[in-house]
C-alpha cells in the first residue's frame, strides 16, 4: 500500500514538474503534497518528508506554508520537524552523506572513513560543500553493525566502506551530478 502511495506521489510530482512550475516554489509543492495526503494533522509527517525529498531541507517558508495548509501553528510544525534527524531544518547539499557513529562502526574504523571524506570534500562533519553537492553528517546506528563501517548517501546504504571505497563512491555521485 505504501509503495502504491509513493508511486502516486512520484507520478503526481513529475506531472507537477512538467507543469512548468519551478520546484523552488515551495508553496505550490506543499499544496500539491497536501492534495495527495489530505488536510488533517496526520498528514504532517508525509508532507514534511515530501518537502525534504524535493528540497533536501525544510526552509522557513516551507514550514510556514505547511502550517498554513494544515491549519497548524508554525511552532508545532517546527517542533515535529526538529524531532527527526532525517528532517533537516537547515540547508543541505544535493547529496547527504551520513556516516554511522555508533560503537560497532566506531570500532571498525568510522573515524578513518570520516577523515577520508572530510579531506576529499574539504568540509567538516555538519558542513556542506561550497558547490552544494555534498553534506557530511554522522548518524546513530543504521542497523548494519555486522557490516560496519557503513555510510548512507541519500537513501543508498554502503556497507563495509573503506576510506578508499568511500572516495570512489562519492566520485560516482560527483560525476552523475555533473551530467
Amino acid at each position, binding site marked *: 500500500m505504501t509503495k502504491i502511495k509513493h508511486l502516486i506521489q512520484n507520478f503526481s510530482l513529475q506531472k507537477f514538474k512538467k507543469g512548468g512550475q519551478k520546484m523552488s516554489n515551495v508553496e505550490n509543492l506543499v499544496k500539491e503534497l497536501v492534495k495527495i495526503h489530505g488536510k488533517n494533522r496526520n498528514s504532517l509527517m508525509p508532507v514534511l518528508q515530501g518537502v525534504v525529498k524535493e528540497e533536501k531541507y525544510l526552509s*522557513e517558508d516551507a*514550514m*510556514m*506554508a505547511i*502550517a*498554513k495548509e494544515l491549519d*497548524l*501553528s*508554525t*511552532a*508545532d*510544525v*517546527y*517542533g515535529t520537524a*526538529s*524531532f527527526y534527524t532525517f528532517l533537516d*531544518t537547515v540547508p543541505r547539499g544535493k547529496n547527504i552523506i551520513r556516516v554511522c557513529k555508533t560503537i560497532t562502526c566506531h570500532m571498525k574504523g568510522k573515524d578513518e572513513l570520516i577523515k577520508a571524506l572530510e579531506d576529499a570534500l574539504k568540509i567538516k562533519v555538519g558542513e556542506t560543500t561550497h558547490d552544494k553537492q555534498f553534506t557530511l553528517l554522522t548518524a546513530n546506528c543504521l542497523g548494519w553493525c555486522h557490516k560496519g563501517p557503513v555510510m548512507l548517501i541519500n537513501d543508498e546504504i554502503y556497507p563495509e566502506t573503506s576510506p578508499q571505497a568511500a572516495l570512489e563512491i562519492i566520485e560516482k555521485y560527483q560525476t552523475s551530478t555533473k551530467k
Partner: protein
Amino acid sequence: MGKYLVNLKINNIPVSVEEGTTILDAAKNLNFKIPTLCYHSDLSIAGNCRVCVVEVKGQRVLSAACATPVSEGMDVFTNSEKVRASRKNVVELLLSEHNADCTKCYKNGNCELQEMTSEYSVGNHIYLDLVKDKDKILDISSPSIVKDDSKCIRCQRCVRTCEELQAVSALAVVNKGDHQKISTFLNKPMHEVVCTNCGQCVNRCPTGALVEKNYIDEVWNAIYDPDKFVVVQTAPAVRAALGEGLGVELGQRVTGKMVAALKKLGFNKVLDTDFTADLTIMEEGTELLTRLKKALVDKESVALPMFTSCSPGWIKFVEHIFPEYLANLSTCKSPQQMFGALAKTYYADKINIKPEKMVSVSVMPCTAKKYECDRPEMRSSGYKDVDYVITTRELARMIKQAGIEFNKLESERYDSILGESTGAAVIFGATGGVMEAALRTAYEIVTGREVPFTNLDIKPVRGMEGIKEAAIKIKDTVPAWSFLEGVELKIAIASGLANAKKLVEAIRDGKATYHFVEIMACPGGCIGGGGQPIPTSAEIRKKRIEAIYEEDTNMTLRKSHDNPEVQEVYKEFLGSPLGHKSHDLLHTHYKPRKRY
C-alpha cells in the same frame, strides 16, 4: 447510566471512587497529597515529570499517579521507602538540568520546583550540573513575558496551555533527548511570533522559566522622583485576587485595603479603571446601537456581530488569526487605555499638572496589558498614555517590599475624579461582565426601562462555561429607537482563546449569527488573567468571580450611565459618546499581522 465504583486501598485505607478516576484524584479524596509538577488541573495529562510516582502492590515498577486510573483491588502506597527514594532521585535529576540560582530568581519563594526541593532533596546534589552545556536562551524581547530556558524543566504545561486553552501554540516542544526544549518557531524572539502575551503560560509555569516582565523598579523610581506626579489605576479583577498573595482568604474582595496600600506606597492619586469601564460602556453601547441602526435603517454594510475590544490578548489574536474580522472589533480602546488617554489630557488639565510630569501606572490582572500600553496606537494624549503596567502579582510584591501589613489596613476610598464607578464596571473582571454591563445601559437607552431581570442580574450571561449565548427581545422602545421594536438581540460570550476561536469559526461558517459578542482572552475572564496570583484552577477562578458579583451587588450605582463622574466628563470635556473628542482619544483601529 451511572459509573461503576472501583474499590481500592491507598496507604491501607479503603476507598471507593468512580471508574476512570486517577490514583492522584483518589488519593485527594483521602487527603493524601501526592506531589506533582507537570500535572495541572486545567490541562490534559502529560505524565512526563515523574514526581507523582506511587507504588502499586504487585507491580515491579512505580506508576505515575496522575496518569494511572484506579482498578479494582488496587493496593497503593504513596509514601513508601521506594517511592520517597524515587521521588528524591527525580527531583535531583530535574535539578541537574535546572539553573537553580534561586536567590537571583524572580520566582524565589513562589516556585513549585523549589518547594519540592525543600521537601525531597536536602543535602548535596548527587548528579552533575548539566545546565552549562545546554544551548539556552534568555528571551527578554517581549514587553510582557520573559522566557528563560535555563530554568525550564520541560514539563510542557506552557505548551499544553498555549494549545489547549488558547489555541495559539506559540510554544512547542522542539528537538529530542537531551536537546529537547520549549521553543517558538525557529527559536524566534517572543515578540516576533504569534504569542498574544496573555500570560496563561506564566500562570502555570512551575519554575521561573516563564515569568512576567516586571516594572517594579520603574514604578518605584517614578514614585521616588519628586518631579513626577504618579497616578495609578486599578483594574476590576485585581480587587478580587490581590489578597491571595497577601494572606487574605481566597475569594475576599480587598478594594478598600488595596486603595489604602496604594496610597501608602506613595502614589499621588489612586484612581480606578472601573471609571473608564463605565465610560467604555457608554462608548461601546452607543457604537453597538449605531451599528445596528446603520444595518437596519440605513441599510449600510456594517460589520456585525460587533466584538468587544477590552482584552488585548484577544486583539492580538484577531490581528494574527482572524484579520478578516478586524472591522468587527469595537473601535473602543480598552478601559486601561481610555484611562491613560484621559489622564494626560482632561485630568492633567483639571488638577493643573503638566502631562509631561505625569507618570501613569496601571495595576492589571493581565500581562498583555504591558504590551498594549507599548502599542503605537496608544499615544493619543501626545505622550505614552499609560507608562507602566504592573500585574496583581507585582503589586502584591511592592506591598510586601514596603513592609505594609495588608491585612491590618483600614479601607480607603478612591480619589476623585476618575475614581467613581458602578457595579456594571466591576463585573468587567468576569466573563460575561462586559456584556451584562452593556445590556444594562443599552436596553435602557432603547426602551427607557431597566433590563427585565431581577435585581439587574442578567443571569444567562454569567457562569464559567467557555461559550455562552443568549437572546433578548426588545419591546416597547422609545421613539428614537423604534426600528429596534421586536428585534431579538442575539449575543454570545466566550472566554479563553480556544473557545473564542471556536465561536468565531462558527460565525465564519454561518453556523451561528449574533449581534454582539464578548470575548475575553483568559479562561473565566480577567479574574483568570495571566497577571493574577499563582496558582490558578477552576475552583479559584469561581471564587474570584463570586467576589466580583458580590462587589457589584453591594454598589449603590449599578449602571454605567448612572456614574456621576462619567456624566461630568461628558459635560465638561468629551461632549457625547462617539463625539469628536471621544473619537480622537478613546477609539482606535488595529492592523493585520502575520499568522505564520
